[in-house]
Structure formats: C-alpha cells, structure tokens
C-alpha cells in the first residue's frame, strides 16, 4: 500500500506536465477520487509551473474571423439544443407508454419483477389443474350438496358454470368437460346436447359414448362419473336420437378421478367412465388467479408509472436548466444592447419592408468603435419547415455584397441577434442594407426575395 502510494506521488511530475500514459492517468485519477493521500500543494506548484511554460513564447494573435467562428459555433449549438429540447419529450412519451409498449431503456422487464406476472400465473394454473392434491373431497362439495344443487339449479347458474368451464378448458387442454343439466330437458348451452335426468335411479350402468348424435341407439348410454370419496350418485345419461341425452342418477361407489381426454367413441370402446369436473372446485382457482392478475397488473402499472414519472422529472430538470441558460443569455444580450445604445458613436440603421412585405421591419444597432452590433427583425414572413430557407442580412458597399453572418438557423423575430463581419462603412458615402430570404447554402449573393431594405448616407453625401 505504501509503495503504491509512493508510486502515485511520483506520478505528479508527469501528471502536471501532461505526459502520463493514459492507463497511469486513469489509475491516478481513480486513486485521487478514492480519497488517496496526495501532496496537493506540490502538485499545485508543479501545475502552475507547467502552465507558465508557454508564457514566454512569441505571442501572436489569431485572425479576427476566429472570434466570429467561436460565436457562430455557440449560436449553432444553442439552436441545436433548443431544437433537441423541443423534440425530446415526444420521443420519450412514445417509448414509455404506460399501458402499451415496453420502454427500451427499462433495465428490467416489469414481468420479471412482479411475482404474479402472466407466465407465473399460467404455470400456477397448470400446476393446480394437474395437481394430485386436487382430490375430490378437496374440490367438491358433499354428495348431498351436489344432488341438491342439481335439483335446484337454475339456468343462470348453469351458464355461470359453463363460463368457468370454458375458461378451464382453455387452461387444461385435453380434458373433457360436460355440463350438468340442472333439470330434465334442459339444453346445454355449449354442447348442444339435452340432458335428461330421470327421477328413478337405473340399476345397471352401461357406459356408452357416441360422437354422432344422429346415430342414436338404446345402448348409446352415457355414464357420467360424479366422483367423490363417499357414496356418490352416478348419472346415467342416454344420448337420444334428437341429440339429447337421457340421464339417471344412481348410487355408486367411488370412482377414480381421471382425465377424460379421449373422444366419445374411444370411451365407448374402452368402457371408461367419463369424469365431470366439479365446477365448484374451480372457483377458488379462478379467484386466486384473478387476485394474482390484479396484483400483477397493479404492480406493473405502479412500476411503469414510476418510471414515467422519473423520466418526466428528469426532462423537466433539463428543460429548466436550458431555460435558465437561455434567460441568462438573453439578459446578457439585453445588457449588451443597452450598453451599446448608451455609447455616443453607436448608430441605428432602420430597415423597412419592401412592397412585397410591407409589414416587416428591422433595425441594426452598430458601434464602429467597438466593432460590435446587433440586428433585430420583426413581423417577418414565416419560413415553412420544408422551404430550406433562412433570413440573411447583407451590407452592399461599393457594389460588393457582404453577408453579416447572422446565425442562419435562427428565426430572428424580435430577438437581438449578434452580427458579425460588419465592414467599415464609416467612410463609405452610400451603404445599403438588405435582409433576404434565401436557400440555406446560398451565402454568396443576396437572393431576389428581399424582405427588408435600409440605407445609410454619410453626412453630406448624395445618393
């Protein structure tokens, strides 16, 4: 550790001279940021010493245009930032719909975080449906209750069970479900069969199944196992020629519950009882599923909503920061304009709209002494987004067109915009100012679409 520290302390010489290899530089920065012990004062002295090295070079000044380039670059960046600010919220909203699409920037999918998400629920459903613990005594009411229900059932209840059964069918494939008819000659809503339950039990059970309702025969009997561990009633149902099934309740021993996924004709061949799923036992499952779904849904909504809120908050902060910057900059420009106007030698050149644009106007405020000025335009005709055109200010001096290098992507309306590249017009008898609308990349000569025109005559000069 001590050696390590010593190494880093030796780094301060190349670090201050700026010749550390990047890997060493990164190590050193990490060491500093980790709060490593450091001879800060010595480093400060060396940094000052190094910074003094260029002081005795033969100083030469950059060209005047470099300053303009700095200003233009900053204006351009400002414009781009403002444009970005305007477009960003729309993009984000599209990406982070609360209900719809998944935000790509979300690090973890919502369904991975919510315990009761859809895949889990599906899995649970399958497990429950096939669970060996789902024994008849757990899922069914007593035999007497079943009989009572069958006798007293009404059609709405039956429809309710049918709905539940349809749901189960979609979740437990391959298992045959039949509806219990609550009373004789009641039409099944989902199978098209009629169930007929005689009052007297039938002594002998003859399980026969056919899949063709039209091919009815006396032996076309249909045994439905009610299941249960206690003494149960079995219902004998006979498929009638018109498609109805005649059924009879009869005491029976316990039948083993099993899946009845075979086709009816197979049942007939194998004499296996067909099991009716007890609908009353399904309800809790559905209930739990619904609860889980609701919890999952609420969790997902909460998560996505929170994400959205965080993003909006972040955007808001960024916007505030940009606006603050703009306000500060505008205040700075305003101060500068006021300062210019307070100078004795500052001139104001008025620009009037041409006959085509009578409502437009503008002014140029310029100080020859400070070589600084601003242009302000008002009521300018709108430039459509697809026009690819900009306003451009020109000075026509001695037949020569000099662009004032105003920022090309500014709208300019009522803002004071800094002008660059103003030629010396103080000695020129007649100077004309133009503001044109022209193609973005055309900056050599003013176009014919002149919006504003102004003129400066030197005192005593004639046009």
């Amino acid at each position, binding site marked *: 550790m001590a050696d390590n520290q010593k190494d880093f302390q*030796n780094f301060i*010489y*190349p670090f*201050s*001279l*700026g*010749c*550390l*290899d*990047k890997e060493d*530089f990164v190590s050193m*920065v990490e060491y*500093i940021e980790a709060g490593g012990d450091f001879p*800060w*004062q010595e*480093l*400060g*002295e*060396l*940094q*000052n*010493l*190094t*910074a*003094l*090295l*260029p*002081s*005795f*070079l*033969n*100083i*030469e*000044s*950059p*060209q005047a245009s*470099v*300053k303009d*380039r*700095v*200003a233009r*670059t*900053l204006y351009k*960046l400002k414009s781009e930032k403002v444009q970005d600010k305007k477009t960003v919220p729309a993009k984000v909203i599209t990406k982070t719909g609360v209900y719809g699409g998944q935000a790509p920037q979300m690090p973890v999918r919502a369904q991975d975080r919510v315990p009761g998400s859809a895949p889990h629920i599906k899995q649970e459903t399958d497990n429950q449906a096939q669970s060996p613990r789902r024994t008849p005594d757990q899922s069914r009411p007593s035999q007497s209750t079943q009989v009572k229900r069958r006798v007293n059932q009404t059609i709405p209840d039956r429809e309710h069970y049918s709905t539940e059964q349809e749901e189960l069918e979609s979740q437990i494939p391959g298992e045959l479900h039949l509806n219990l008819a609550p009373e004789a000659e009641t039409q099944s809503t989902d199978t098209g069969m009629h169930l007929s339950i005689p009052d007297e039990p039938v002594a002998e059970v003859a399980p026969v199944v056919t899949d063709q309702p039209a091919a009815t025969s006396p032996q076309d009997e249909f045994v439905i196992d009610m299941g249960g561990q206690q003494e149960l009633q079995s219902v004998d149902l006979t498929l009638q020629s018109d498609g109805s099934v005649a059924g009879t309740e009869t005491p029976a021993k316990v039948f083993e519950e099993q899946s009845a996924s075979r086709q009816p004709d197979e049942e007939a061949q194998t004499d296996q009882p067909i099991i009716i799923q007890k609908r009353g036992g399904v309800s809790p499952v559905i209930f739990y599923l619904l609860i889980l779904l609701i919890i999952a849904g609420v969790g997902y909504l909460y998560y996505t909503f929170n994400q959205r809120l965080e993003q909006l908050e972040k955007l808001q902060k960024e916007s505030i920061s940009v606006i*603050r*910057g703009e306000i*500060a*900059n505008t205040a*700075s*420009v305003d*101060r*500068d304009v*006021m*300062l210019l106007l*307070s100078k004795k030698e500052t001139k104001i050149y008025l620009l009037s709209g041409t006959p085509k644009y009578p409502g437009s106007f503008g002014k140029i405020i310029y100080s020859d002494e400070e070589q600084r000025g601003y242009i302000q335009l008002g009521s300018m005709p709108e430039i459509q987004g697809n026009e690819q055109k900009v306003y451009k200010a020109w000075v026509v001096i001695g037949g020569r067109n000099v662009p004032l290098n105003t920022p090309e992507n500014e709208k300019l309306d009522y803002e004071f915009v800094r002008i660059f590249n103003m030629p010396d017009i103080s000695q020129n008898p007649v100077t004309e100012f133009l503001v044109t609308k022209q193609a973005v990349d055309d900056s050599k000569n003013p176009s014919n679409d002149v919006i504003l025109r102004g003129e400066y005559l030197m005192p005593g000069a004639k046009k």
Partner: protein
Amino acid sequence: MSINYTDLSDADLLRRITARDSRALEALYNRYSPLLYTLVKKIVGDQAAAEQVLVDVFVIIWQKIKAFDERTNNAYCWLVTLARNKAVDTARRMKGASAEKYEYSSDYENYFILPRLSPDIDELDLKTAMSIKGNIEETLHKLTDAQQYVIYLAFYEGLTQNEIASKLNIPVQTVKSKIKIALVNLKEYLLRGGE
C-alpha cells in the same frame, strides 16, 4: 450601471461565464486568445488546425465551465492546461488513429481534456504570468539540454513517458527521472528568484 469587463479578473470572468454571461466569454477571448492560440499553434503546427482548436477550446469553456473549480481562483492554469490538452489530443489524432486509441466524446473530454487542478493550487492570472515570464525563460535555460528536450517533448509534442523513452531509445525510468529533476530544478530556480 454597465460592467467594464476589461477590469474584471480572470477568475471573475469565468464566474460570469458560469452565469452564462456571453460578454464575459468575449472578454476572456480578447484577453486569452493570443496566448492560447500561440500555444496551440506551437503544438499542432498548422494555422487552420490551431484556429479550429482555439474555437473548440472556447466552446468547451462555455459548455463546461462548471468543471472549473472557482475556489482555486486560478483561471490561468485552468485555461492553459485545457488548451494544451485539447491541442495535444488534436495533434495526436492528426497523426493517425494509432496515436490515439480512445474515441473522442463528451465523456472522454470530461476525463482527459478538462484540467484537474489541485485544490491546493496558488492563484495565478494572465497578468501575473506575463509579469514573470522573463524569469521562467531564464530559469528554463538553466536546465540541461536533455532536461529541456524531455520537457519540450512532453509538453509541446504531447508524448507520454513511454513514447519519449521509445523516441530517445532510453529506459522509461530515465525519462521519469529526467522529468522529475527538470521540474524540481525549475521550481527551485524560480523560488530563488533567478539567482
């Protein structure tokens, strides 16, 4: 009441730039551009490239002024180091892709270009620096040729210690030692006031 920017200190100008005062940036440009341009041009060697680097430097100043630690009150060192780092990086990239393996980005700029001044650095401004430049020159000439050359290669050529060692065909340890001795001597000569 109008502000006379020419009367403001370097650090005050930077503080005003932090408050997004563009006039302060202009005043800073007027004050520092000759020195920074001279330094940058010496490093990149080409006028057009030097001008572009100078533009970039002032854009960085405007955009990342918050990286300047106002408590140091040392605008001079921050600006010179910033311009030097940017110029060296540009020169290395101009030499070819192999010279600089990292892609230039805002993060890269924050990490490698923006100066990391010691929090315990003394105040220094352009006026003071210009007033002692004679001493610096005199002191520099007191170093051995080898020491001067190593400092030149490091500061103006932007070579790292390993690159200097390769160029001079000497061990890296020797380069490290020469750099250390050169800087220590410079500091001592300056402290002794050019005796």
